[in-house]
């Protein structure tokens, strides 16, 4: 419960806040600001816009010189090509998308299921050398994937995990668990341990107390953490390209990258695949945005 709050707001009546435009030096400055922000937005968003445009252009328009911004024919053929093979049946790309969903989804769920209770334990219990353990856990993230991928590749080949979805799931889980523990420990620390104490006196076991009284308060934090873990697994490229070789196992990032190269590049297909690839994370983040904001600002828990 905050006590210091009173001291900071107690003096005198609340003064009017100076409008931001005035503070920054008048109208001229604010016009400049808007112009700069607009320019920045255009630069940042142009590739995205171009990707979306290209994905719905007919091939003739895609390769047109000068480039056509507005008067092009709209087609959904590229999207059809993403999902269906030319001879009918599923395309290799659609298989890779499905692989991505499975690998990213399962590894995120695993990391959450393992990481959240671990974070709770680190927050609630006296663990020997707790700081050292937590540092060690975090240190597994210090190595960039490129550095460790070769030894992992060799090990995977030995134990038969090379070119399997399970292999990718395991490596992504291994990467996400430390992240989940660190993020979630912060959230668990925010929830007073006394809720669990009270629950235990009510007659619940420690695990029931955690499950019924603490876990619901952690949902915003879990949502935020899971989104980050999901984005990591979904976007991961280095492990995916080194540890898989067949089309049936490959995830979307290396599969899309594989479309580029060769003698001709079907840019329409690349763009459509990229759009399909970008959508799920956007949609998911949009759905949990309320939790995401609450979670990231750590303001989720009322004391």
């Amino acid at each position, binding site marked *: 419960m905050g006590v210091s709050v009173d001291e900071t707001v107690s003096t005198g009546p609340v003064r009017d806040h100076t409008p931001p435009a005035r503070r920054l030096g008048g109208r001229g400055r604010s016009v400049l600001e808007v112009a700069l922000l607009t320019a920045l937005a255009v630069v940042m968003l142009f590739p995205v816009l171009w990707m979306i445009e290209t994905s719905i252009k007919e091939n003739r328009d895609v390769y047109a010189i000068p480039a056509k911004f507005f008067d092009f024919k709209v087609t959904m053929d590229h999207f059809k090509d993403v999902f269906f093979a030319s001879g009918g049946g599923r395309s290799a790309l659609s298989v890779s998308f499905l692989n991505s969903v499975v690998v990213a989804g399962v590894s995120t769920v695993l990391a959450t299921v393992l990481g959240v209770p671990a974070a709770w334990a680190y927050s609630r219990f006296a663990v020997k050398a707790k700081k050292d353990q937590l540092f060690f856990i975090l240190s597994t993230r210090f190595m960039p994937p490129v550095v460790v991928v070769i030894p992992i590749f060799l090990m995977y080949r030995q134990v038969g995990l090379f070119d399997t979805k399970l292999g990718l799931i395991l490596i992504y889980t291994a990467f996400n668990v430390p992240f989940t523990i660190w993020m979630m420990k912060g959230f668990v620390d925010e929830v007073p341990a*006394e*809720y669990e104490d009270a629950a235990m006196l009510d007659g619940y076991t420690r695990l029931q107390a955690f499950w019924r*009284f603490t876990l619901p308060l952690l949902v915003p934090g879990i949502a935020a953490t899971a989104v980050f873990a999901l984005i990591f697994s979904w976007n991961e490229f280095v492990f995916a390209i080194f540890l898989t070789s067949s089309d049936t196992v490959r995830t979307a990032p290396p599969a899309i990258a594989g479309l580029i190269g060769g003698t001709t590049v079907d840019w329409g297909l690349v763009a459509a695949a990229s759009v399909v690839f970008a959508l799920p994370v956007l949609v998911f983040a949009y759905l949990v945005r309320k939790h995401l904001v609450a979670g990231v600002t750590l303001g989720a828990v009322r004391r």
Partner: protein
Amino acid sequence: MGTVAVHGLCKSFGKVQALDGVTLDVPDGSFFVVLGPSGAGKTTTLRAIAGLEKLDAGSVHLDGRDATGDAPAARDLAMVFQSYALYPRHTAYENIASPLRARRCSSSEVAAAVEQMSSLLHIERLLQRRPAQLSGGEMQRVALARALVRRPRAFLMDEPLTNLDLKLRVEMRTELTRIHRSLGGTFVYVTNDQVEALSMADQVAVLKEGKVQQVGTPTEVYERPANQWVAGFVGSPPISLLACHAEGDRLVGAEGWTLPRPRWTTAEDGRPLLLGLRAEDLSVEQRGNASLSGELYGLEPLGDRTVVDVRVGTEILKVKARPTVTGTPGERLLVTVDLDRVHLFDAGTGLALSEAGR
């Protein structure tokens, strides 16, 4: 049945020794108050009894059975937390119902019990609110209701009245005593308010820096403080302590005053002592032969009485007087002492001198 006995409790948090050999014996059905200043280890003691704190040493016996390692749920206790610890996502109703739900009571039993408790504590209107929508005092009453809704072995209460305003606190004091009498359970009640301790307790344990200073009835603790610290902590205004030593049949003060030596004390001549004088055992309005002279230092009118501060040498005596008393600072005064009611402490150890002969 509901006896609680702890023996030799020790608990340290890093360098802080929160409990240092705490031994308490709470009889069945008693209202047992643990009194101590902030940081004395009161909360830690309760948490140790509840099984929420891993002990460095010591044992907890419930109903005569060793429960030291038992899980909190297995101890069959209820607790009011100092910070309430109400579940933030549950309504007041669900908070109060929680101990019954954990024990899988039927919903009609739950409803009846919650209703009874809420009318007892006057919180019927608040049942559908969440803790965030309650004031501190309302939360405290909900927390009390959650503890009282069940008939456990013993109720542990950690300063349950501190956040209420004075009027409500006085009301709740009598209310709690009444509840204790009608429910007949064992209460272990923690407070830093000596008025609460003296007015509610069957027995008081005074705690300081993790050590039990004295255990006794409120009267014993007030009238026969075991040491200088207990004497100073219990009682308002605080007891006045004057440095002195015995010389034949007289007590001679460091400030030059003399008083007849109380007959019961056996202290040898010259041993440094502290004379403890309670405000109500002193008077500025009567004449008598056992008296100290000093000058008026200040008046503290408290409505029903006035506390007169009298300076004797460099020491201040607090004297209880009628509210009508007047005077100007600097005025010479004679303070009459009720010699039968003085306390003597060893100035070195702070321990009370034996009053066996009293």
